[in-house]
């Protein structure tokens, strides 16, 4: 179908079905039945088999007509794409629809206190006992886990094989007594993540996804969607400006809850946008030492933006690989955030002692100063990004690996 044909068809369908006075769930059920909830998915699973470009046209029409789309924000997107890619028909049957309607929320249970950079070194155990998987262990950095219905869980099912081979991937029901999510406070005072404790938590055999011992492969699928931004859609999903109508209220609440863990993310990136206004406001713009640092920051920021645009063009043309370009962008973001924090400190001087609403830029400068350290850690540390760049982009030789052979023989944290 041509973009124009898609436009005509979806517009006609929306004219007939979209109404702002429906309850959100009712509308989404109609949306699913109409086949417009996830047009890039296959026809047998609520979709139309559209390409991503075709699906983009549908999204455009939705935005133009202020139509509430299917639920897709936050870890939901990771769950649905992973299940679609690796799940059994039974799993797709059970899980996909309530994700799209927004009835079920999901979380990701990957990282552990003992395995951060080394995700495949995870030690949460899954043992098959009396026809069920029994899970014991601890996860961490789990956004939304405190209100999620289900979790994407990786756990170790075999300690006698090399570490990547002994991992299995489960769809975990979070609403059971053996699962406890505890909010984790960050140094900037926000609570965006949880620790999740699993004590004899139970998973039925039909919730193993991708096959026993094949969990690392499935996890890489999830991670590739994460890198492509499926978990961050929340930022782009908001409708332009507030809209009047009952369905919008429900939808905005869904977005608000999903966005809540990310409110400090702009501060984590250094708030480059506030640098010139603050420099003008304080007069620091006239300080030649500060000017040098602002110029460096603008240069880095412009360079990263231009290089990302160019990489994105290359990706669309199929000439740029996603992972290295992502690592370069992520490393650039760290450098920029650190420089921004440095510049904000120089600009504020002693006023950088203060925080809260009465302090500079409504407290945002203070939040920058205590949030920037996260950018070089979360989602893969700078060190991991440099490994990726040097090995995958530059082809430099890998170093010695101390984590081969059976998992049980690998040295690890107690």
């Amino acid at each position, binding site marked *: 179908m041509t973009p124009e044909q898609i436009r005509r068809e979806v517009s006609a369908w929306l004219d007939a079905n979209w109404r702002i006075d429906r309850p959100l769930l009712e509308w989404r059920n109609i949306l699913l039945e109409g086949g417009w909830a996830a047009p890039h998915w296959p026809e047998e699973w609520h979709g139309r088999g559209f390409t991503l470009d075709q699906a983009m046209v549908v999204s455009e029409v939705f935005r133009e007509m202020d139509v509430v789309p299917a639920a897709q924000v936050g870890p939901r997107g990771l769950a649905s794409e992973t299940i679609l890619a690796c799940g059994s028909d039974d799993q797709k049957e059970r899980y996909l629809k309530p994700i799209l309607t927004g009835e079920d929320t999901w979380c990701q249970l990957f990282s552990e206190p003992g395995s951060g950079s080394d995700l495949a070194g995870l030690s949460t155990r899954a043992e098959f006992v009396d026809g069920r998987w029994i899970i014991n262990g601890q996860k961490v950095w789990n956004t939304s886990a405190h209100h999620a219905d289900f979790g994407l869980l990786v756990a170790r099912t075999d300690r006698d094989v090399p570490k990547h081979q002994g991992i299995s991937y489960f769809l975990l029901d979070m609403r059971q007594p053996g699962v406890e999510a505890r909010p984790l406070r960050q140094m900037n005072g926000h609570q965006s993540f949880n620790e999740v404790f699993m004590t004899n938590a139970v998973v039925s055999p039909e919730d193993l996804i991708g096959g026993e011992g094949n969990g690392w492969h499935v996890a890489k699928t999830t991670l590739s969607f994460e890198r492509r931004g499926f978990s961050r859609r929340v930022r782009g999903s908001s409708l332009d400006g507030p809209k009047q109508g009952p369905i919008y209220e429900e939808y905005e609440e869904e977005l608000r809850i999903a966005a809540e863990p990310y409110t400090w993310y702009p501060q984590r990136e250094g708030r480059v946008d506030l640098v010139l206004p603050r420099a003008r406001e304080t007069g620091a713009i006239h300080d030649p030492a500060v000017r040098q640092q602002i110029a460096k920051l603008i240069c880095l920021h412009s360079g990263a933006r231009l290089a990302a645009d160019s990489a994105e063009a290359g990706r669309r043309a199929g000439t740029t690989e996603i992972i290295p370009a992502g690592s370069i962008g992520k490393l650039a973001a760290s450098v920029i955030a650190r420089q921004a924090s440095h510049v904000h400190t120089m600009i504020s001087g002693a006023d*950088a*002692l203060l925080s809260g609403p009465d302090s500079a830029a409504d407290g945002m400068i203070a939040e920058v100063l*205590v949030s920037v350290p996260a950018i070089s850690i979360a989602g893969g*540390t700078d060190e991991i990004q440099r490994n990726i760049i040097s090995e995958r982009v530059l082809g430099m030789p890998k170093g010695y690996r101390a984590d081969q052979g059976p998992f049980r023989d690998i040295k690890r944290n107690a």
Partner: protein
Amino acid sequence: MQTEFSSEQQLLRDVVSRALRDKSPPGAVRELMASDRGYDPAVWQELGAGAGLAGVHVPEAWGGAGGGPVELGIVAEEMGRTLFCGPFFASAVMAGNALMEAADESARAELLPGVASGSVIAALVLDDLNSPAAVGGSLRARDDGRLAGTAAIVVDAHVADLLLVVARTGPDLGLHAVGSGAPGLEIEPLQVVDPTRKLSRVTFAGVPARPIGTVGGEALNRTWDLMSSALAHEMIGGAQRLFESTVAYTKERFQFGRPIGSFQALKHRCADLLLEIELARAVTHHAARCLAAGEGEPWAASMAKAAAADAFMSAARAGIQLRGGIGFTWEDDTHLWFKRAKSSEVLLGTPAIHRERMMTMLEGAA
């Protein structure tokens, strides 16, 4: 001029270090930083008065221990290691040095013994904390002698018995003594980045005050140098302690089947950090010796403040980065040092301001 610590000074360091290990463990720091007051009066009584730390740099004639900037630096450095929460910096370092440098003979004799013994908590009120050259822009003594204006940030004013206020008096700056209960005085606690250092906004709406000295340019600069030197020592102590714990962490933490401290990128970062701290420590100790002897480079204190601030921030950034996610949590202690590093970096002037001040002393203004 000294080039090494004397055995008495080594002994002082050992004593203070042991006392603080007991009295200022991370648990106590967390408790006090969450409190409004921000310090433990019993501990302050024991260390400030009992052990004589509040007057370590004050001549014996005024009730002190007879030391000077070097001894003050030793105490500050050890306090910095443990993030000691208490009015030492505000009262002993800031107010104490201001009294010694700028108060009249009679006011010194009257006020210093209380500050030196720790029985009086004093706070130095300056209307600018970036540079001595900017002091005097807001606070002034009116014609009737009462004080007017606002000091946007004052360290530990909320627990001070005595405020020492630098305010413009005609063409000069004067030092003024104000009791904490004086009429027209308003002390509002502020939200802070570093909860181990409590700050307030202090407003003077015609507050009766006693003039106790003239703050000439030289006295103000020397006071600033003494405060900067002490703060540099505090930062070096913090940097060193955090660096040690970070290196220890890399030896214990395993990823990819190895202690992360065996990865060359981390090893080299730690080596660079060691170098940065060593050099900053050397100029910091030198600054105190110059001030004590009244000789050496006039810019030594500014050089120390800039170097120590950069080294502490480097240690703080590495402290979090090398711990990964756990280092960014509230539960882990690293952020306490990070926030102290950030607050110390900007208190009394950023590194860039001190470098420019240093060059002005070396070569005149740009």
